[in-house]
């Protein structure tokens, strides 16, 4: 009789132990995408201007944020050599660089990193001989097209803010910026319900018309807004049936000849889908206008996008890296008679010869052939695609003496 309560307590003890054991089992840690994961957008890019070609990409120890620096390279017109303009940047560039230009000036923004919370800006109007300062007193968002310059030197920037990202506009000198719009206000605009925007992802100009690109939560829609001189208006479009189930982000906007191309992106765990929507009018496109959409490019979701570079005569280079370390380069291009309205998919994705392993940027070269910027820590090798052999030829090598650990707090 005396043993009964003892065994009762023993049973309770075992139950407690079992509960404890089941509560304290090792759980799998949740994996969040990091800045380097395949879900992040690449920031390496380049621009071709009448004053030369500019490229930004990372060098140093690419796996270590403290020792990874972004470099600003410049190739003057009619020259085959590239120069590193690191001295002009005059601060640590671990956060990345953003470049944009119009016909008169090129602007470089240094994305904040570590304890720096605002965005230093430098700009040149004379091919990099002299530079002046601007200042964006906010944190430039980490998107490829987060900074844009209009034909009349007005500028737009997407910035990170506590309640979601916002768009700021500058009307002079790039040192005075005013709040333009944020996601909350975008959502309230007429037509926004079609897209239901969740994030501002890009800004651009078509001439002097400001454009904002967003993520749409409505499948089969892509979200664009244009500034009509006094207010923002929804100007997105419907996608064709093969993209009607996808939730689309606008990740790149490029002005081409008399029109615009918008690089669209959909991501899932298994697949990255890219497409380009284009339109002929650069001035007054609106929601009602018909957008032409390209064939889609599907990339394995495990691959990592390395760069999305616009091509000087229209189109984009898309470079991705496979798990084994190899790279794959795709080129999107339009037929010469492009940018007319149409219903059928227009423009094609072409697989180009894989650039050398370690390529961090693909630049549209002077002869409309791509240049591959291959980085091995502090060494840069520039390769050009041979039109006849379709192989990559080394055209320039240089060494950048980077101080490892100099940004390590």
């Amino acid at each position, binding site marked *: 009789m*005396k*043993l009964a*309560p*003892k065994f009762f*307590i*023993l049973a309770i*003890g*075992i139950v*407690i*132990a*079992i509960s*404890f*054991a*089941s509560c*304290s*089992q*090792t*759980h799998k840690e949740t994996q969040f995408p990091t800045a380097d994961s395949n879900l992040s957008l690449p920031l390496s890019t380049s621009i071709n201007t009448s004053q030369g070609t500019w490229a930004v990409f990372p*060098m*140093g120890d690419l796996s270590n944020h403290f020792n990874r*620096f*972004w*470099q600003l390279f410049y190739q003057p017109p009619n020259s085959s050599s590239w120069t*590193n303009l*690191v*001295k*002009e*940047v*005059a*601060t*640590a*560039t*671990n*956060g990345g660089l953003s470049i944009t230009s119009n016909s008169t000036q090129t602007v470089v923004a*240094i994305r*904040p*990193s*570590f*304890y*720096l*919370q*605002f965005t*230093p800006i*430098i700009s040149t109007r004379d091919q990099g001989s002299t*530079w002046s*300062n601007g*200042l964006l*007193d906010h944190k430039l968002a980490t998107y490829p097209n987060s900074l844009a310059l209009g034909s009349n030197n007005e500028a737009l920037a997407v910035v990170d803010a506590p309640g979601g990202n916002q768009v700021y506009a500058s009307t002079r000198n790039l*040192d005075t910026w005013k709040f333009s719009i944020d996601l909350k206000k975008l959502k309230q605009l007429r037509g926004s319900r079609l897209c239901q925007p969740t994030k501002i992802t890009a800004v651009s100009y078509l001439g002097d018309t400001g454009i904002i690109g967003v993520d749409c939560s409505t499948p089969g829609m892509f979200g664009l807004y244009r500034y009509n001189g006094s207010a923002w208006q929804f100007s997105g479009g419907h996608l064709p049936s093969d993209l009607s189930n996808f939730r689309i982000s606008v990740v790149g906007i490029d002005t081409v000849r008399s029109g615009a191309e918008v690089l669209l992106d959909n991501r899932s765990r298994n697949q990255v889908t890219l497409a380009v929507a284009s339109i002929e009018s650069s001035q007054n496109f609106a929601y009602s206008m018909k957008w032409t959409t390209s064939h889609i490019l599907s990339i394995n979701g495990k691959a990592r996008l390395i760069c999305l570079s616009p091509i000087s005569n229209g189109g984009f280079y898309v470079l991705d890296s496979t798990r084994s370390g190899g790279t794959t380069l795709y080129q999107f291009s339009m037929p010469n008679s492009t940018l007319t309205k149409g219903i059928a998919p227009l423009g094609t994705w072409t697989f180009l010869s894989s650039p050398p392993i370690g390529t961090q940027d693909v630049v549209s070269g002077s002869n409309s052939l791509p240049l591959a910027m291959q980085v091995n820590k*502090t060494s840069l090798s520039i390769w050009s695609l041979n039109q006849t052999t379709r192989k990559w030829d080394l055209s320039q090598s240089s060494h*950048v*003496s*980077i*101080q490892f650990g*100099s*940004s*390590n*707090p």
Partner: protein
Amino acid sequence: MPGMSSGLRTNNQLIVSAFHHQLLNQGLIILFVLLILTVLWSYLRLHFLQQTSPSTQEALGLHREFIARRVLRIGFGLLWIFDGILQAQSSMPLGMPSQVLQPAAQNSPIWVQHLVHFVSTIWSYHPLLVPASVVWIQVGIGLWLLSASRGIWSRYAAITSTVWGALVWALGESFGGIFSRGQSWTFGLPGAALLYCIAGVLIALPENFWHNIPLRRFGYLLGRNLGSAVLQVLGLFFIAMATLQAWPGRGSWNGSPHNGHPGGPIYLMLTQMAHTPQPHFLSSTLASFQGFDANHAWEINLFVVIALSLIGLTLWIQPPKFNRPALVGAVVLCIATWISIQDLGFLGGTGTDPNSMIPTILLLVTGYLGISKSATLSDTSTTGIATATASNSTTPDTSYSHSSISTRLKGRILADPSYARRTLGSIGALCIILIGAVPGVAAASNPNANPIVAQAINGAPQPVSSPAPAFDLIDQNGRSVSLASLRGKTIALTFLDDVCVTTCPLIAQEFRLADQEIGTLSRKVVLIAINSNPRFITINYLEAFDQQEQLTTIPNWLFLTGRSMKQLDSAWKDYGDLVQYLPGGSMVDHSEIADIIGPQGRIRYIINTDPGPGTRVFASSFSNQLANLLEKVANRK
């Protein structure tokens, strides 16, 4: 700002020698106190104790301390002293937060981590007084337990031991890991300090509990005396630990990692321990056991589960024939685990105690003695207790209630001669605890870190006496500022890059903290930074930097730049600030120094402002150093 530890290496010579110096100072004071107590003891012996004969004690019926309680008290007393000595290791002042406190809390819930973070902060801010206080508190508790064998002093000692043990368990051991994932008995669950607490409670309980627990229901459920209850609770605990050990999802059955399966916890723990410096005999034992565990983890775990279950059941049921074999089995299992898995608890890395196995063995032995000796002693002890109770009813304590204190004391000592020894021993132990604890608590209540951390990284301030070079620059509001215009003010002048991503924001925060620390003196002080970036020299950058670092509300903060590069360049050269573009992709390089300029325009000190590891501890320590220097210079006549 990264990390709450100071960021210094644990063997930093300045801190280690200052810590030992601190211990020596407190040790000398303690020696002095003990000397006084020894003199007092001699006086008492001479004047009182010789008057009492041994037969008096017997006549009073004072029984000897029960063996199980004595083993527990002396055992844990020695453990506390040993732990105190371990706390005096050179690695403690700087290694405790990063190597002991934070790793223990790593897998615990966020509220536990916050709690540990709070303690780590205090420890890191005051790496001399707080660690020294822990040394003396633990040594003091140990000595108190040893010196006070019975009576009220002994119970106070036990209660103090329990309270301190609970603090160590919660704050130092993150509740022994009971809230964290993957913990098991072999790794020290439920935490050594909890066992110290349990021991403290057992010692604090009335001594007759070792013979018969008077609470009937409690006794009915947990045995008739404390020894039996201790063994039953341990038995239940062993069974629970066996269940945890056997639980499939916890990985205890796994050995080395293979085919995508993660390694078992024992294998991983041994791998981790292989990286800590330790004596050869231990490392070789661990290595060979790790090799064995890699291939036979399943069998090892099966053995541990069966052994724990059998021992647990035996301790719970307590069949007379199997008590001793169960005790021997448990002790052997504990010792094997202590050596092969727990690394003896203190020889590898920054050990603070011998881990959980020795306290477990002490509790087991105590429980066993409790059941085996209480029966044989029950008759005499019961008589003793009865006599003592009877004598207590006529104890001089009550009869002297209206007498003077000295008369009462005399009567008490005459009634129980060892009372004087216990009292003086307890007073000595209490003095040791207070001599350690009072400065430690005082330091912990200071929100600013000890300046020694900054000195350990940057060296001591360099005293100088030379005229400060003149400058003529503009501030963040575009107003002209020259050295002459600041005459009569004490100035802290440094150089900052307005687009710096790492050190300059940290230095700015150190200046901001220093301004808070000097309080009203800030009216006589000006904090100046001269821009050190040759490209971003316009005042909108200074404004942006001030905004970012929350410096806009500090009225005596001036961030200066030149109207031209020439003006700036001149200031850099005059103050020895070397500004240069670094070769590729990194920041502009400039000197990280600060000049403390007196009201008469003379430089009084030059200090290194390099924020080193950039921790909050360092920032607070540096700001304390800067504030001290500003006060010193400003108050100098």
